[in-house]
C-alpha cells in the first residue's frame, strides 16, 4: 500500500491545481466584483438596462438632483439644472464615466462585496443617499453663461476643498436624452466632463507657473526690467507680442501678458527648473476627486530647443492644462501655497470620512508675492469695475490652438476674501480672448456665487 500511497500524490497535485484555479477566481472576484455587478443585465439592479433604484442625490442646498420614483430614474424637475449638472450626476445609460451614478454606484445602490445585492425589504435606506458640495443653481447659471460654447466652469473653496460649481458644455437633458449621433459636431465629447477629464493648451495662464519659478530661483527678479520691442529672436525663430511693451518689470509682464519677457525668463530658468516648478504646480499628475481621477495636464520641456522652451514658458509648445488642476493651483496661491484637495461629495457622506488633504505647492512667501501680482492684474488690466467687491486675483489666457482656429479662452484665479475663499477656472474652447469672453463668464458666475451666500 505504501507504493500506492506515494502514487496518490498525483491526486494531491490535481486538487491543488483546482484550488489554485479557484484562488484565481477569488482574486478576480475581489478585484472586479463591483464591475461585474454593475453590468446592465444584472436584474438585481437594472430593468431594461436602466437602474431600478438608487439613493437620492442632493445638492448643498438640499435640492434633489436625482432620485428613483417607481423604478424610474428621475432628475431635477428643471431642465436647465439637470442639463447643467448632467456630467456630475451621470446619464441614465452610464456613458459619463465620471458621473456619480458610475463613481458612487456602490453607495447609491447599496451593493458591497460582503452582502452583494441583498437589500433588506428590497429597498434602500437614507445611508444610500448622497449630498454633494455642489450648488446646482449656480452651476446652471454657469452653464447658461457658456451659452452653447464648449468649455467648463469650476469654483471651489480653497480652504475646505468643496467644489461649489461645476459645469461642462456641451451637455444634454439626461431625462430625455437626444439622439447624440444625429449631431456629432454639437455633441462632440458630450460624455466628457471637461472640467475633470479634459486638458487644453493653457496659453498665458501658464505664465503664473513661470513667474512662480522665476520668483523662487532668479535673485532680484522683482526689480529687474525686461525690454519688449514686440519681438525677440531666439535662434532662428522669433517670439512676438501683439504690441511692444517697452521696459517691463515681472508684475507688468504678467499683467500685460508680455510674451517677450516670459520667453527671456523661460530661457534664464532653463528646462530643468521650469519642468520642476510645473510639476510642483500639478502638471504631469492626476488629481483624485472622491475617487474620480482627473486628466493630467502635461509639461515636457526636457528635450525642448531654446525657442520651444520659450514657447513652453508662455504656455504654448506641447503644454496642456487640466482646468480643475489649474484651479487647485490657483487655490494654493490664495491659500499661502497650500493646496487643498478638491471634493464633490459632502464629507459626512463618506465612510470613513477622510480629513482634507493638504499639499504644499509653493513657499508661503512666493504665494504672497504671486497673489499681489494677480491682484495687480485685475487692478491694472482686467478692470476692477467688472469684478467690484470680489477682491479678484486672476490671470487670463488666450491659447493658440493652430492655424485657422480661434484660440481657447481661459480665465483663472481666486477671490482674496476670508468670507468667500473661492478659486475658479473658466475655459471656453475657441472662445477668443480670455480676458474678454472667459472673464465675462467668470464675473457673472462669481458675483452670483457671492450673492447666493451673502
Amino acid at each position: 500500500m505504501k507504493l500506492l500511497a506515494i502514487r496518490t500524490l498525483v491526486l494531491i497535485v490535481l486538487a491543488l491545481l483546482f484550488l489554485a484555479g479557484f484562488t484565481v477566481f477569488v482574486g478576480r472576484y475581489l478585484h472586479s466584483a463591483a464591475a461585474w455587478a454593475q453590468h446592465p443585465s444584472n436584474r438585481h439592479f437594472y430593468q431594461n438596462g436602466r437602474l431600478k433604484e438608487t439613493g437620492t442625490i442632493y445638492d448643498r442646498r438640499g435640492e434633489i438632483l436625482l432620485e428613483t420614483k417607481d423604478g424610474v430614474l428621475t432628475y431635477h424637475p428643471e431642465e436647465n439644472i439637470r442639463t447643467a449638472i448632467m456630467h456630475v450626476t451621470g446619464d441614465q445609460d452610464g456613458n459619463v464615466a465620471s458621473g456619480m451614478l458610475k463613481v458612487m454606484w456602490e453607495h447609491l445602490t447599496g451593493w458591497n462585496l460582503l452582502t452583494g445585492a441583498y437589500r433588506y425589504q428590497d429597498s434602500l435606506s437614507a445611508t444610500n443617499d448622497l449630498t454633494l458640495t455642489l450648488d446646482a443653481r449656480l452651476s446652471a447659471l454657469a452653464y447658461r453663461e457658456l451659452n452653447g460654447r464648449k468649455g467648463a466652469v469650476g469654483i471651489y473653496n480653497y480652504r475646505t476643498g468643496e467644489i461649489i460649481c461645476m459645469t461642462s458644455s456641451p451637455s444634454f437633458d439626461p431625462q430625455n436624452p437626444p439622439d447624440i449621433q444625429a449631431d456629432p459636431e454639437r455633441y462632440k465629447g458630450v460624455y466628457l466632463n471637461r472640467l475633470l477629464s479634459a486638458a487644453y493648451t493653457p496659453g498665458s495662464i501658464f505664465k503664473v507657473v513661470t513667474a512662480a519659478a522665476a520668483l523662487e530661483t532668479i535673485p532680484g527678479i522683482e526689480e529687474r526690467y525686461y525690454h519688449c520691442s514686440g519681438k525677440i529672436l531666439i535662434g532662428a525663430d522669433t517670439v512676438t507680442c501683439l504690441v511692444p511693451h517697452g521696459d517691463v518689470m515681472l508684475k507688468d509682464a504678467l499683467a500685460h501678458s508680455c510674451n517677450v519677457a516670459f520667453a527671456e525668463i523661460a530661457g534664464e530658468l532653463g528646462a530643468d527648473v521650469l519642468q520642476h516648478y510645473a510639476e510642483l504646480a500639478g502638471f504631469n499628475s492626476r488629481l483624485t476627486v472622491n475617487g474620480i481621477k482627473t486628466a493630467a495636464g502635461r509639461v515636457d520641456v526636457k528635450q525642448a530647443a531654446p525657442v520651444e522652451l520659450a514657447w513652453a514658458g508662455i504656455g504654448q509648445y506641447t503644454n496642456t492644462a487640466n482646468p480643475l488642476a489649474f484651479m487647485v493651483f490657483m487655490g494654493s496661491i490664495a491659500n499661502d501655497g497650500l493646496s487643498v484637495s478638491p471634493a464633490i461629495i459632502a464629507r459626512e457622506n463618506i465612510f470613513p470620512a477622510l480629513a482634507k488633504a493638504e499639499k504644499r505647492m509653493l513657499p508661503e512667501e512666493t504665494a504672497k508675492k504671486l497673489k499681489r501680482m494677480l491682484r495687480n492684474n485685475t487692478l491694472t488690466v482686467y478692470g476692477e469695475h467688472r469684478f467690484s467687491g470680489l477682491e479678484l486675483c486672476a490671470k487670463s489666457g488666450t491659447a493658440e490652438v493652430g492655424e485657422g482656429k480661434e484660440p481657447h479662452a481661459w480665465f483663472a484665479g481666486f477671490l482674496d476674501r476670508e468670507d468667500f475663499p473661492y478659486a475658479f477656472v473658466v475655459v471656453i474652447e475657441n472662445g477668443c480672448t480670455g480676458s474678454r469672453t472667459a472673464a465675462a463668464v467668470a464675473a457673472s458666475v462669481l458675483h452670483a456665487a457671492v450673492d447666493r451666500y451673502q
Partner: protein
Amino acid sequence: MNSFRESMQQVLQETAGSIYPLLTDLASQAANTYTLVARWLFPLLSLVILVRCLVPLIRERSTDTVWGYLVLANGTSIPVRNWENLIGRGKYADIVVNFPVISRSHAVLTFRNGSWTIADLGSKGGITVNDVKVDKAQEIQFGDVISLAGIDMALVPPVQNEALVPTGAAGNSGDTDEEKDFTLNSTVTLMLLFLFQVLAVVQLFASRASMTLAALPVFGIFFLTELFHYFIMRKLQSKSIELEILVYFLCGLNLALVASAAPSDLKKQLAAILIGIAAYTVITWLCLDLGRARRLKYLALVGGVLLLILNLAFGERIYGARNWINLGFITFQPLEFVKIAFVLAGTATLDRLLTTRNMTAFIAFTGACIITLALIRDFGTAVVFFGAFLVIAFMYSGDLRTLFLVTAGAAFAGIAVVTFMPYIAMRFAAWGKVWQYADSSGFQQTRTMIAAASGGLFGVGSGNGYLKNIAAADTDLVFGILCEEWGMLVALCVVLVIVFFVFYAVLLTKNSRSAFYAIAACGAATIFLLQTALNVLGSVDVLPLTGVTIPFISNGGSSMVASWGLLAMIRSAV
C-alpha cells in the same frame, strides 16, 4: 332580507379588502426579516457542519486494523495492516525486511477469501513455505515457516482478536471510547444539518420563488430518508458516518437549488436521491467481498460498453451534446453510469499491479468511452474521463513517461478538435475575454460572474436569484446560482467538500485493505474533482466552459444516481 344580506356581504368584502393587504404586508415583512437573519446562519452552520464532519473522518484514519504479525527468527514482530502487503528491502515495501539477500520487491502477502497467500514477485532468492519451494503463489496457514531467500519468518494471528474472521463488514479497531465520542458527535452534526435544511425550506417559502405547498412532502420525505439512512448505517457499521452527512449536506443544497430554479423537477430529483442511496447501498454491499467486487468489475465492463452502444444508437440531443436516452416514461444520461463502470475497470489488486501490468482492457475501455464522447460532442465529460484515466493509470503502473506521452498525444488530438470543430472553437475563442462577448459566446460565463458578484459572501437568499432564469443554469452554471442565492461562503464549503473527498481518498489509500479499493476510491474522487473543477472554473472563465455537472449539486437525475454510485467506491475503501 335581501338588502340586509347584500349589505352584510358588502361589509364583509370591505373588511376583507382592508385586512388582506394588511396581512400580505405583514407576511412580506416577516419573510424579509427572516431572510435578513437566516442568510447569516447558513454560512455559519455550513462551516460548523463541515468542520464537525472533517475532523472525525481525518481522525479515524489513525486507528487502523492489524490483521496479523509477521515474526522473524530474531524475534522482530512486524504488524500486517493490509490485505495486500509488499514484502521486501525497498522503501516502498509495506513490510520491510532489511537483509541484503532479500529483493527490493520480494513477495506479496495477500488475504483472500478467508486465507492468506504468499506470492513471489520474481525475486532472486525465492520463497519456500515449510521448506517447499513456492513457484508462483502458495496459500499459507498461521505458524507456517516462510523463508524468503533463507530468512525465516512466520505469520501469527493478531493478539487482540481471538479469531480473525474478516468477513468485510468488520473493521473493528477495538478502540471503543473513541467510537462513542464519534457517535455523539455525528448525531449532533446531523441535527445541525437538519436545522440548516429546515431553515432553507422556510427561506424558500420566504423568497420570491413561486414555491407551492406541494414542495413540502418532497422535503419531508428527504428528511425522513436522511434520518432513516443515518440510523440504518449506524446500526450496520461502526465506521464514521460523516461521509454520508457531507453528502446529505450537498443533496439538501441540490433540492433547494432545484426548488428555486426548476420547481417542477423537484419530485424527480427526490426520486433520484432515493435511487442514488439505494444504488449506493447495493454497490457498497457488493464491494464488501473482494472476490465478488472483482467479478463485478467484469460485469461493469460489459454493462459500460452496452451503455456506450445504447447511447450511440439511440442518443438524443439536448443542449449541445447527444447524450440522452428517452425511454418514453423517463429520460436519462447513460454516460453518467458509465463512470462507475469506468472506475471499476481501472481497479486491480496489488499482486496484479506488481506482477502483470496488463492494462489493455482498461485502455481499450477508456478509448471506447472517449471516442463515444467525441462522437456525441460531450467534450467536458471526455476531459473528465481522460483525467480519471491518467490518475488511475498512474496508480496502476507508476509509469510517468508513458502517461506523459499519452497526455501529449491527447493534447494534440485536443488541439485538432478545437481547430476543426467550430462549436468548440467558439468556446475557446471567448475563453479569457468573455466580457468582450458578454452577450454572445461569453453570455453564460458573464451572467455567472454577475450572479456571483450579486450574491456577496452571504447570498441574496435561496429563491431570490435571477441566474436560474437562464437555460440550463441549474446544471452548467449551478455554481453561479449557489453563489448568488447562498453566497460565496456556502459555495466555498461545497468546493471544500469535493476537495476533501480527494484528500480523504488519499488518506484511505495508506490503510486500505486492498489496492482494489484504494484505486476505486481515488478514481471516484478524481471524477468528482474534475467535474467540479470544469464546472466551477469553466463557468467563471478560468477554464473554457464545458457542460459538466457538479456531483450531488447540479439538477439532474442521472448525475445524482451516478454520484452516489461513485461515493460507494470511496465508502468501500474505508
